[in-house]
């Protein structure tokens, strides 16, 4: 039972354009969500988070949108840069000390 789903395994975007990565979840008890970025042969690094009481959080080029009614969140990267090429994991947490991760989306930003 995959509680956090990233249905697009890969995404290819031209440099300078917007990258939109999507994530769906099934458990309405989740009350915060995070995005992690992972380069090959490295551990994931925290990128941005959002609490369930918000619908948007912005940090520089990165914005996360949360639609609780649809149980959907998205990460927008504007403008996309080649250094953004990585695997992006969506994760969700609730009233436990565990995060549930999605399967990841591989983003490739080409010149």
């Amino acid at each position, binding site marked *: 039972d995959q509680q956090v789903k990233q249905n697009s395994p890969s995404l290819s975007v031209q440099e300078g354009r917007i990258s939109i990565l999507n994530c769906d979840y099934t458990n309405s008890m989740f009350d915060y969500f995070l995005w*992690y970025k992972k380069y090959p*042969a490295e551990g994931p690094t925290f990128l941005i988070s959002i609490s369930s009481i918000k619908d948007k959080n912005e940090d520089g080029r990165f914005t996360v949108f949360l639609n609780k009614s649809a149980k959907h969140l998205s990460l927008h990267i504007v403008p996309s840069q080649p250094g953004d090429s990585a695997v992006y994991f969506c994760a969700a947490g609730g009233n436990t000390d*565990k995060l549930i*991760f999605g399967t990841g989306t591989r983003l490739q930003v080409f010149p």
Partner: protein
Amino acid sequence: DAMVIQNPRYQVTQFGKPVTLSCSQTLNHNVMYWYQQKSSQAPKLLFHYYDKDFNNEADTPDNFQSRRPNTSFCFLDIRSPGLGDAAMYLCATWLGQGISGYTFGSGTRLTVV
């Protein structure tokens, strides 16, 4: 710099030969986690420690054990590695509050031959 360090980065072990992966942290975080990640899959939580309290996931095989002798160190022991245990093993820490999320180590890539 405060960080989470995993050793070794790459580990090759023989089928059935016990192996230990280590994780240390300088963040003084209360919670330490071990995740297993296979290609194109979500990181799968094996177990975690909240301080000294050990929490095992229901579907973690008995073949996997863990030790946390102190706040800074946590070990993953695989008693009899099988070919299916080849994966990236990620250690992560969390302060125990707030939504800043985990801090991950660089992982240990385990190969079973």
